[in-house]
């Protein structure tokens, strides 16, 4: 009958193997611990640097707070009409919200919307219509020869404090229409004395209504506007 026999290494060798295992484990543990410290150290220095960079800012961000690369406000498609008609859009949606940042000790600021210039127009490359003609749908006595007027209504918009920031003393502007040379900047949101500092706020639901002249040629029109915080 065969029997299996096991041959153990001598006791001295077992001890040696044990010592090696012990040392290896200690080394691995130390390395991992130091790696953890390194991560913390690197991120701590990054954190303090960011806090020092406090400047007033505004941006268009998505629901996660990431900056939107080409922000725009799309207007609903319309059909050619022999009469005047209105196009509507919403500035500040859940995916493209206006975010105001105030990481400073100054509590007063304003966000407003204006055309890229007082003589800017909607254009599809060939045809144009206005956004700030005081006569509304028809051409008035302004510099260009086209009619059209945009109304911005932030009065029903919603201001939300990000991460629990208070919205006290933060208010939306009133509904108004652009008139060249008279109303070139429409206030969307402003903070008055006593508003929170080192905070952020989102603005959504600003209604834009564009009065379009009768018989406006079909096309895909764009208008560049500036969103400013100061």
């Amino acid at each position, binding site marked *: 009958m065969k029997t299996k026999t096991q041959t153990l290494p001598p006791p001295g060798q077992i001890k040696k193997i044990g010592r090696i295992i012990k040392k290896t484990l200690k080394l691995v543990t130390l390395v991992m611990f130091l790696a953890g410290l390194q991560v913390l150290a690197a*991120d701590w220095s990054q954190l303090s640097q960011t806090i020092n960079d406090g400047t007033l800012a505004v941006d268009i961000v998505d629901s996660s707070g990431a900056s939107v690369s080409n922000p725009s406000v799309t207007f609903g498609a319309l059909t050619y009409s022999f009469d005047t008609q209105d196009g509507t859009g919403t500035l500040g949606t859940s995916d493209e919200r206006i975010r105001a940042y105030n990481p400073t000790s100054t509590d007063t600021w304003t966000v*407003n919307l204006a055309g890229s210039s007082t003589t800017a127009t909607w254009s599809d490359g060939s045809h144009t219509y206005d956004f700030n003609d005081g006569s509304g749908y028809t051409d008035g006595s302004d510099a260009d020869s086209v009619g059209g007027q945009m109304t911005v209504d932030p009065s029903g918009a919603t201001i939300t404090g990000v991460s629990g920031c208070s919205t006290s003393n933060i208010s939306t502007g*009133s509904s108004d229409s652009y008139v060249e040379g008279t109303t070139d*900047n429409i*206030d969307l949101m402003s903070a008055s004395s006593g508003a929170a500092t080192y905070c952020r706020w989102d603005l959504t639901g600003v209604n834009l209504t564009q009065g379009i002249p009768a018989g406006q040629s079909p096309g895909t029109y764009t208008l560049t506007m500036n969103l400013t915080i100061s």
Partner: protein
Amino acid sequence: MLAEKVKKIGFFILFSFIFVFFSQSVAQAISYETLGGRPAYPDPNIKNSSSWFIYNLSPGETKEDGVLVVNNSNKIKTVFIYPADGVVGSSGGFALKQLADKQTEVGTWLTLYPNNPPDFFIDIFQKKKENKITYLCQTSIADLEKDMQEYGFLEKKKHINQNQQELLKEWCKGNKLVKLKLKPQERVIVPFIFKVPQNVDVGEHIGGILIQKVDDNKNINVGGSAVKLTIRIGVRIYETVPGKVVKKLKLEKFSVKKNFKEFDLSRYFFAYWIGKGNPKPEEYIVSSTIKNEGNVSIEHQDIIHIQNLIFKTKKENIERQFQVLRGSKFDSNYGWHNPRFGWYSFQKEIKYKDSNNQVHTLFTDKIKIWIIPWREIVLAIIILIIVYLGYKIWKYRQKKKYGGEGWIKYEIKEGDNINNLAEKYQIKWKVLAKTNKLKPPYTLKTGQTILVPSLNKEEAEKNNNTENEDNVITENNLEKKNKKEKIKLFFQNNKWWIIIIIFILIGIVFIYYLNKNNKAEIKKEISISSVGGEIINNNTEKKEQYINQEIKNISVNEKEKNNFKKVEIVVLNGGAVPGSAGKMKNILKEYGYENVEAKNALNKNYANITLYYSDDKNEELANLIKKEIVEKYSKKKIIVKKANNQEERQKEIVIIIGQDK
């Protein structure tokens, strides 16, 4: 033993692993991917100088400064940097002109120097600790040569050649527009010179430096007609040219307006079905317009007083602070979340300090508004109508079932009971009992007359006619009964007409209050009382012009005049608008009267303005004061009188301002 040691080390490894893992997630820096800008060298002694440029330069004076431009993102960003004039936004907020717009004021006073000077001059430029640009551009060539030689940047006997001078001259022109490419997290200081022209007027001038993101993808298709947005950050500039600063606000408009429709069903149903998000809140908008007639921006306290007039509860005071820019109008709006019912008054109070730090207070008249819960009333009426109609339908059906229509009279014979009669006439005993209004135990007496269904039609019709005759007779009988039953009958017979008339009356009241609420917004636009300005009340029917006031010729010498200025004067408000006494006190102080106080009079029924003197020796003074103030109060009647009572005698001169009469 080895196994134990291995176990201990194993736990230690596990701990380290957890430590590393969680340290990664804990160490997340807070950042935002935007551009930013602020003053590069703020003065800690000036409030808000860390966010705005605040200068007090005289005409011709120059200031060298810098703007810090920051790229907070993790991407390369290209920006335009340029100065612009300040303008007023649609609601009175601070705004700046666009790049393409013509700059005419502060936007032309600032020149940027993003680059270093020509290489030849860099050493001397960097040697200077401050005002480097000014030094380099305003020092004469000869002095520049001397300095450069002194510092060893230019060999002696050598000169700055023509070419170098031209390069320097070109550089000194600076830039009105700078284009910068900023690396991720890069911060750059762009120096500039701010120079106030010689011919500017005293007071505040506003502008700013814009940091505008350059749109790299102008032609990106956004899928339809769209507004493309560009982001700008403005760093404000407030330059106040020293001189006589005037601070004056005028309250122009005050209104309270309902901003919702009572029966706008889309708010409640369609907004959620179509998914247009939260509907506009139901509120009253309390609005006012303030005009800055001074030459600097003015911060003011804006207080709205709201009071419940039914229960006279404590006033609700909403306090806010705003800034009105020089020469502009500021619109403030406050959304008041109204209850569904009540009677409320609204009043606005504006407080600000003038250039002498005196507090001015402006008040509006009160606007009173009834808030009627029309929605609830109409809903209640609709519910009542439904309930009433339901009741009528039920009654009709009950009557049809248990009214005994077409039934005939039957005299109870011996042996009749409710069960056998019900069986005979093929109806349920309960119907028979209910129609005849029988009560338990439903015993029928011989000879009793009850109604039973007719077994043939003719008899039923004959019975109906008999019943109608009976009814007529009944009505005839009722006419003879007391007044109460007559009224009851009247309402029973004419109830539908009464209901219609009630609805018409409710409709009239509804329309009346609807129009009344709408008119509240324009009701008090011009009834504004002011301490710092004029009292304007277009609702006043009497407008008396006191142009030709009788003014005695007063001639006093200088010594007397000085003595007069020390006399004790008290100004009392005896029924005039709040703040009138304070205003008069300020005017007298301007005229040099040293001991003037303002209070309220005990009696509020005084008329016009009366100057009371206690002693005859003060009559002359009283007339002098009248002469001095008549210009300010040209539309008021001013009388000088000898004091008659204790209130009029409390000081040497007592001025009581009463109501206009």
